[in-house]
């Protein structure tokens, strides 16, 4: 944007009248999405019959419930430590496997991909499908193939994570500056060489942020491991909540919050390192390279040693976690008939009017929750991101607060709102809104921190105020990832709308759980197909929007 700004300034000197840039496709897309978000939010509010007064009236009941959760019960530290280790091993193994599959998928699915034309849509379908099918469904499939145990759990976690990691990484690849890639291509580098030498280093900070965040999600979502007979902290939490043992649940939530907080610290530290490496490289890289074909050695400094050591440590942890899965090859021989049994139960998918209605209802609630969540999340993200926060200590406070909000499971929010409001869509919507807000704030803060600092510094240096820097330096850069992440939050909210069922608000998440509980796998298949179609539609919308915004 610097060129636009300078052009504006030059004309301002000649003609001081109000200036408006012409309406471009970019502005129209942005305005259209905004209007759509507001409209959907209103429609949702109308649908659920929002009434803040009844929420205020019910707060006493919520306070009483909170008092019953206090104090947290942290007894049995040895058990808890073992469960944490178990959860971590499965989450690390699952996330690591997902990364291995995601990186090539993301490069193929990105708009910048230059390979065969048919590959890109194919990669996108794979990404969407892995995302649309819930972990629970994969868990059931993998249990049939590999039997009960951590292996089935790690694979279920891995397959479901591919959808998110590949999608966000593809977005980052598209946002990366194309100039270095073109330069490498002009020198005759092949596509793989271009990807490894120019694009991968650029998206590396984003990749680490995405992977650490997915690890965070996988630790919190480890309740699904109960389905595969593996233990873990999520299963303990689910049992505690199911048996109304809130003191125990509060203790486990404390442990989860500490875990997530540690991951967040790691994420901040890693990002600072990778970013520092990039900017010093920018300045010193200009130093004369040796002429001729002699290989150039970049040398070792503290930063590079730390980066390489970090990468090696990550590799070792990942391999150790893989070893803990104890693969039993003997099981694989009987896998096919078992799998066929489940798959034939899924065919033909049982579509019905009720099901489509539930999907629409969930979609509406998810879009509404995501729109409101994105608005609130943007404010929180601006307070959190180190380059936009008005005051550093505030950034730390908001960051910790967000981690606490994320660490508390949806079921607890649902309980608190159900106590205040009774069962119904309003309570479900509020619970979904809280998780969407936490999700959006995290995504936005991460991508704000990856913005190019130069336009912002340029504006600050000519005396722009904070609000002006934001409007002219930060926001125009941020629009593409704001749109992309915002739509992704909607997509996540739809898939996580199980919480609506917890609060008695029905929807597709409820039907999914009911169909799995009652062994109606044909209904499950129909739901998965419906969700996949919608997720693909949201994804396509996001792509069209980004093509006009980038």
């Amino acid at each position, binding site marked *: 944007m610097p060129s636009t*700004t300078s052009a504006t300034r030059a004309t301002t000197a000649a003609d001081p009248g109000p200036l*408006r*840039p012409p309406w471009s496709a970019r502005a129209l897309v942005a305005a259209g999405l*905004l209007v759509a*978000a*507001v409209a959907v*939010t209103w429609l949702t*509010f*109308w649908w*659920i*019959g*929002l*009434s803040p*007064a*009844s929420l205020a*009236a*019910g707060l006493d009941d919520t306070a*009483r419930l909170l008092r019953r959760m206090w104090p947290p019960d942290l007894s049995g530290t040895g058990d808890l430590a073992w469960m944490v280790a178990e959860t971590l091993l499965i989450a690390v193994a699952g996330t690591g496997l997902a990364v291995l599959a995601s990186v090539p998928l993301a490069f193929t699915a990105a708009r910048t991909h230059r390979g065969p034309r048919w590959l890109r849509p194919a990669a996108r379908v794979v990404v969407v499908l892995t995302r649309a099918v819930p972990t629970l469904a994969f868990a059931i499939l993998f*249990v*049939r193939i590999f039997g*009960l145990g951590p292996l089935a759990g790690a694979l279920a976690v891995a397959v479901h994570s591919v959808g998110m990691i590949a999608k966000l990484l593809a977005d980052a690849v598209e946002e990366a500056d194309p100039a270095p890639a073109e330069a490498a291509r002009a020198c005759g580098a092949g596509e793989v060489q271009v990807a490894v030498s120019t694009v991968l280093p650029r998206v590396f900070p984003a990749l680490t942020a995405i992977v650490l965040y997915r690890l965070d999600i996988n630790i919190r979502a480890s309740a699904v491991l109960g389905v*595969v*007979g593996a233990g873990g902290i999520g299963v303990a939490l689910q*049992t505690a*909540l*199911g*048996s*109304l043992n809130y*003191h*125990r649940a509060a203790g486990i939530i404390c442990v989860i919050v500490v875990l997530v907080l540690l991951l967040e610290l790691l994420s901040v530290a890693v990002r600072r390192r990778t970013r520092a490496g990039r900017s010093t490289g920018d300045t010193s890289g200009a130093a004369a390279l040796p002429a001729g074909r002699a290989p150039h050695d970049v040398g070792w400094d503290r930063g590079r040693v730390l980066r390489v050591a970090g990468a090696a440590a990550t590799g070792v942890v990942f391999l150790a976690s893989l070893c803990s899965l104890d693969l039993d090859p003997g099981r694989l021989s009987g896998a096919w008939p078992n799998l066929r049994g489940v798959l034939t139960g899924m065919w033909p998918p049982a579509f019905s009017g*009720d099901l489509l209605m539930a999907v629409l209802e969930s979609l509406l609630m998810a879009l509404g929750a995501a*729109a409101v969540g994105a*608005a609130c999340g*943007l*404010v929180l993200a601006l307070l959190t991101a180190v380059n936009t926060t008005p005051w550093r200590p505030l950034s730390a406070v908001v960051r910790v607060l967000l981690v606490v909000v994320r660490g508390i499971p949806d*079921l607890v929010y*649902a*309980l608190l709102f*159900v*106590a205040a409001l*009774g*069962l*119904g869509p309003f*309570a479900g919507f509020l619970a979904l809104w809280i998780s969407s807000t936490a999700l959006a704030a995290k995504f936005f803060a991460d991508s704000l921190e990856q913005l190019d600092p130069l336009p912002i510094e340029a504006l600050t240096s000519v005396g722009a105020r904070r609000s002006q820097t*934001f*409007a*002219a330096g930060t*926001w*125009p850069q941020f*629009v593409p990832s704001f749109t992309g992440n915002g739509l992704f939050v909607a997509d996540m909210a739809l898939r996580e709308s*199980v919480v609506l*069922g*917890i609060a*008695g608000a*029905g929807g597709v998440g409820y039907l999914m*759980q*009911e169909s799995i*509980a*009652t*062994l109606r796998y044909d209904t499950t298949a129909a739901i998965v197909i419906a969700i996949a179609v919608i997720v693909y539609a949201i994804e396509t919308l996001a792509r069209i929007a980004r093509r006009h915004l980038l």
Partner: protein
Amino acid sequence: MFRKSALGVVAMGAVIALLPACGAGPGSTRGAAADGDRSGELVFAAIPSEQSDNLEASFAPIIAALREDLGVPVRFQAVTSNAAVVEAQVAKRVDIAVYGAFSYYLARSRADVEPVAVPLAAPAGDPGAYAYGVTRGDDKSIASLKDVAGKDVCFTDPGSTTGYLQPLASLREAGVDADKDVKTVFTHGHDTAVASLLAGDCDLAFVGDVFIDQLLPARGLLKPGQVTKVWTSPLIPGPPIVVGTWLPQDVRDRIAKTVTGLTATGAASAGLCKGSEIKGPKNWGRHADATACTLGTSTAWTFVKADDATYQPIARICEITKAEVCTSGG
């Protein structure tokens, strides 16, 4: 660009500012709104179980009968979490609920509720269910619970009475300590318990009778002879209809009278489930294959009166096992 972006920011700010004002939206008067004053309306909540295909449809005849007899609107809520239903009852926002026997045991110390009725599976049956201990058909090493020591055992999950707590208590009485003498595998569901047993992940699985006798064979997931039943539990009380004691005594009595007066075939001839009738299962004796309605679960014949004493067996199980799920404070 500058102005338009600024405009975007202002618009976004306006959205946030407008949120609280949206309360006056046209939908705020909708019946489904979860507002505080429910003006005579009763809320009926239930949790999906393996035995109901479509929860709302299977409770529809009961809801219709209650609406008719009580003369007030009854709103049905399907909820996936027992904790949410219990908390809504603590806050007196759910008047009638159906959940598992163990959930009732947990709820009775927190919410002001009492059971009024329990489903009867067949005209000549008992008000409850049995847990089975099953082994693979070709495995002859286990003949009774005493032989279980040293084996791998599949339970469903720690909060299930049929799938965990009752078997645990019976194992204890047979002299087997589940913590030390067996390897415990939680499979999360009754069907997965059977699947894991057949796959060899455990040597004995504890599952509800209805799965072995009806559901799994009917869905083609279990063939005759694949499993052998080696143990049957004492009667485990069924999932009660629980009402809030904040309702006037006469209302509670009328609810009990309405549901105990219903029979599956009677409801069908009264036209309570037009279009979604089922055929009576075999264990209904002379009513087998008769046109019937679902009463909560697809196999319930009628309801019989119940009270807190009906659920004493659960308290006894908790006394024997001292299971962690029983001892929750709060």
